[in-house]
């Protein structure tokens, strides 16, 4: 007791050394010193390249040329906004992003609901559910290229069962089909993660809520819409934002399978940036496109922050 009293007394009354100007200065500087490494890291490896990219978008750079970069002001942006191909790319990006969000989250929610129920070998099944997410993207691409091969692909066997299909379809050569497959493969790759997060949220819902609702005569659909969805609403909102960010920056699957084709049908902004920089070697225009992509990402992030702020306000 006396120890505790002494301790609390000491804590409440700072000694002389802690109140000296040097100690105060040290205490004041400590937080800055602690964040210094991360600020340096962020500054050198994230902020500086972004700033360099923004600066590059106002210049004209010719790769492997002796000419130094030339300041061209807003030229690259004027070119971008007047380029119909840019608006098509934005349209394709938004369409792809929206479709992946809908498909991946719907499948993720469905499988989470399924795995929330007890059944035999559930742990094994849960492990298998995670496989698409765990496999690296490049082998996934190779597997799907074979599955969709117009000459050897197994999916042709299923397609030929459909009425009117006499030839193996050109899965990645028809614009609409190619976009469909990009959405499906990206969703297939991503849904286990969403499923796992939703499952965790589902398991946090108190069972008493369901039992009380059942006593009041609620049917399964009403349980789902009135209890389950509101209870996991925050998680779903977060996942929508995450899915938007992940699908927005999807590169490997699209680039390796279609390269943005056919006819630009799957050319999202990241593919466009890569092609502009490393196929057309139009480096400065690519940086302008990169800035545009950055702004879109910022809007999504801002939307998320706004949403969180609103929720905090509501909770308060």
């Amino acid at each position: 007791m006396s120890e505790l009293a002494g301790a609390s007394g000491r804590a409440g009354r700072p000694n002389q050394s802690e109140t000296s100007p040097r100690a105060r200065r040290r205490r004041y500087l400590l937080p800055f010193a602690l964040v210094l490494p991360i600020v340096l890291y962020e500054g050198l490896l994230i902020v500086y390249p972004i700033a360099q990219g923004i600066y590059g978008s106002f210049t004209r750079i010719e790769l492997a040329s002796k000419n130094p970069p030339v300041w061209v002001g807003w030229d690259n942006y004027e070119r971008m906004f007047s380029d119909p191909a840019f608006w098509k790319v934005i349209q394709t990006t938004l369409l792809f992003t929206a479709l992946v969000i809908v498909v991946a989250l719907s499948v993720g929610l469905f499988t989470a609901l399924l795995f929330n129920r007890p059944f035999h070998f559930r742990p094994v099944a849960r492990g298998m559910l995670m496989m698409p997410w765990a496999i690296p993207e490049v082998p996934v691409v190779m597997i799907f290229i074979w599955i969709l091969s117009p000459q050897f692909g197994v999916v042709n066997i299923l397609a030929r069962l459909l009425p009117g299909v006499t030839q193996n379809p050109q899965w990645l050569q028809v614009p609409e089909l190619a976009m469909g497959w990009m959405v499906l493969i990206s969703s297939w790759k991503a849904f286990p993660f969403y499923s796992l997060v939703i499952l965790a949220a589902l398991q946090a819902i108190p069972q008493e809520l369901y039992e009380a609702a059942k006593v009041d005569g609620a049917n399964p659909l009403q349980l789902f819409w009135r209890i389950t969805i509101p209870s996991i609403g925050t998680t779903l909102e977060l996942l929508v934002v995450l899915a938007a960010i992940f699908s927005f920056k999807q590169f490997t699957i699209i680039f390796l399978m279609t390269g943005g084709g056919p006819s630009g049908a799957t050319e999202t902004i990241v593919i466009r940036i890569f092609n502009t920089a490393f196929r057309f070697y139009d480096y400065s225009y690519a940086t302008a496109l990169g800035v545009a992509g950055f702004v879109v990402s910022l809007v999504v992030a801002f939307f998320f922050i706004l949403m969180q702020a609103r929720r905090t306000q509501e909770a308060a």
Partner: protein
Amino acid sequence: MSDHDVRQQNEARSLLNRRDFLRNATALAGIGLLAACAPAGQPDAESGSAAPAVSTGKKQQVRYLSWWFDEGNRGETWLNFVTEFNESQTEIEVVPENIPFDQYTTKTIVGAQSGQLDGDIIMATPELAPRLIQADLLVPLDDVLTRNNITDLSSAHDALRKEGNLYGLDMVTVAFGILYNQQRYEEANITPAKTPDEWVEVSAALTNRDEQKYGFFATHLVSEASDFWFQLEEWCMPYDGIWAEGKTPLLTSDPIIKGLKLFKQMYDVAMPQGADNPTGYRLFQTGAVAQGLYVSAAVGAFTKDAPELYPLLRSAPIPWESNKSIARIHPMMINKDSSVIEEALEFVTYMYKPDNYRRMVEGCQDVIFAQPSAARQEYLDNLEWLKPGFSGVEYVTPFDIVGDFVFNFNEFGQIVITNFADVLNAGKSVEDAMEVAQKQAEELAERIS
């Protein structure tokens, strides 16, 4: 010792530790920052070119960058030569580094832009070479000719000269020709075509999609951009066209439109549509594809990749009146910023000794000799597929067909293939697609001028 004393000591130790930690962390961060900001240890080009490597008992390593070390007999031949050279040297060791062809140009150009080429010895494509020469990134190689008494170097090297100096030495010239599977021709009772129209007919006759038999294959996917353009560039030849003259693109010219329409016809009647390059190659190996426009350098690879097919390979005569085809020169070059220029020169000199050069060309089963006097008629006579498709043809180079766009060959090609893909997949007419491509190419010309 009182509690107060103990506490003071602990406090002091704790403060000392924290201070030490912060001091050390700041010092480390500072050192890291200085190291990051310090200029890279770039070798002094002048001293590098003047001073030979100092003998330290350890061999000086020369990095030799290329895309061909895993290409069948070509890779094997080159690796054997590297071993042979290394064994003959006490102070030099050549280290081969493979970079996939599709990434090679991009990697090199981006490296050049960052201020320094990677590697000491660099292989180049016909389009990459002038770009590097123009940017003053290479070492003159005239000395190699002097040391080896070579006086009959092919005229294709003229494009590799600047201000009287020679900056590249051809290690393989590849020429396009029509290669076919003799068995498939005999089964269908077909003789090689003599005109573009006959070629379409022959290819259609060799095709039966239900049985997965195809008359022809060429790369046609935008996801394989480099390979697609690599093959499509030949399609200006059937009607004797060129893609550009000087800075003026000629994508809407009659020969180009006709050539691309011919490709579309072949795509419609004879090609395994949607097949990627490895699939097309595999289909040719198994006999499912009967013919293709192959470069001579690729034929040798079949001895290893498809030994059953190789004896069946024959070349068809060029089925267009001009009898022209494209030959692509691939020079070996030395990086001006290398710290082992003399050692690198030693290897290039070794490879260009007429006897070594001949052994290398024969090992790779190539057929065009940059040193004509090194060619052995007996070797050429034994290649059954050589005549008539790869012999007696009038060859032109990429420099002749793309004008000033040779310095921006990939960008130009990307414009052509992305628009032409609309013809293959989106039902656009060749004329409409090339009109768009023409405008884009004109914009490119304006940008690079």
